[in-house]
């Protein structure tokens, strides 16, 4: 229940971000719903698993739902996947890392850089996996249609 406000804020933020990169109102609303849901999924998972695993699965869910929404709306997947992953980008981690460097804590900052890179790597892997799954499903669907 404590997460509801944050999830709604994430959804609204994603919708405004989508509008800022000239998405249509309909697509911005869809992006907002998907972005809020995947961020909620991240918050839920982060109670049970480490941040890297939760970001990985939240990004995977977000990108897969973006691929599905793109097929439904007959629009390129990028239109949804770019705004959807924005709240999951490790901005807070990057800030804390830079704060440590600014305070002269080089060891802490170095660890932060490694953590941020690993998290970004996890996100990249999830984006890659989602695209591959979507491509695979599309290819199988086309084959089935051809056989018919």
């Amino acid at each position, binding site marked *: 229940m404590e997460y509801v406000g944050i999830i709604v*804020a994430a959804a609204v933020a994603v919708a405004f971000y989508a509008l800022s990169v000239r998405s249509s109102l309909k697509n911005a609303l869809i992006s907002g719903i998907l972005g809020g849901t995947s961020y909620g999924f991240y918050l839920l998972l982060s109670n049970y698993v480490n941040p890297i695993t939760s970001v990985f699965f939240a990004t995977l869910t977000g990108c897969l739902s973006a691929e599905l929404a793109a097929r439904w709306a007959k629009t390129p997947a990028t239109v949804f996947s770019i705004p959807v992953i924005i709240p999951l980008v490790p901005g807070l981690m990057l800030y804390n890392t830079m704060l440590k*460097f*600014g305070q002269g804590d080089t060891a802490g900052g170095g660890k932060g850089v490694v953590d941020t890179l690993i998290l970004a790597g996890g996100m990249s892997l999830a*984006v890659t996996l989602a695209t591959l799954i979507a491509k695979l499903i599309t290819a199988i669907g086309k084959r089935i249609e051809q056989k018919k």
Partner: protein
Amino acid sequence: MEAAKDDCVVLAIKLGEGVMRAGGETYRAEECCERVLSACGASEISVVAFPTAILISADVDGAHRTEIVSIKHRSVDLKKIEEYNGISRMVAEGKMGVDKALAAIRSSDKERPFLSIAFTALAAGFFAFVFNGGVWDFLPTCLITFIATAFKHCADRLLTLNFLSTMGSSMIVTALARFTVAAFPVCSQEAMIVGGIISMLPGLALTNSLRDTISGDFISGAARMFEALVTAIVLAAGVAIVLSF
């Protein structure tokens, strides 16, 4: 008919260039060009797109045509990616003629910077709330991001080096956040800075670099990955420089 075939090549390269300029994936830009050229009956079609240029080579009515366009400026415009992708599909399906498609590209509405900056500022306000901020962080974050994004927009027009404007705007966000916290200690510096810089983080470059790599466009993938890395470094450096004072 000859003029129409020539227009076809022009349309193909304009669509490809538009998709690349709007931040679309390399394979999408190439597909848009190939679709249009195939619909016009061209053969021996070869399209190569990079983040900085697009090249088309095709045999149209027995004559060989080659077109190259250099791409100097890139931005993020999801509407244009959708529009241009749709135009190429309609031309391929015969639902839209080449002339109409060219007219549609010409009449495609231009970017409205003020709206874009205002939406970015509003998004930042809500992101501040997501990243441990309170309701009192909303307005300062919106204002700070509005100023920083407006600066970035103006600097991008004046400078060819986008990285400098990114670094400058992250410095502005951090400096203004520190001033705000000094004046109103109830505000959260962390939430304001993260909210302000998150929309500048290279999410698009990262996503597209991976999509390009998966599609076999290794040069574009590597170039965009490098762009994402440098953008993240300059953003972080901008924050670190101001925080160190």
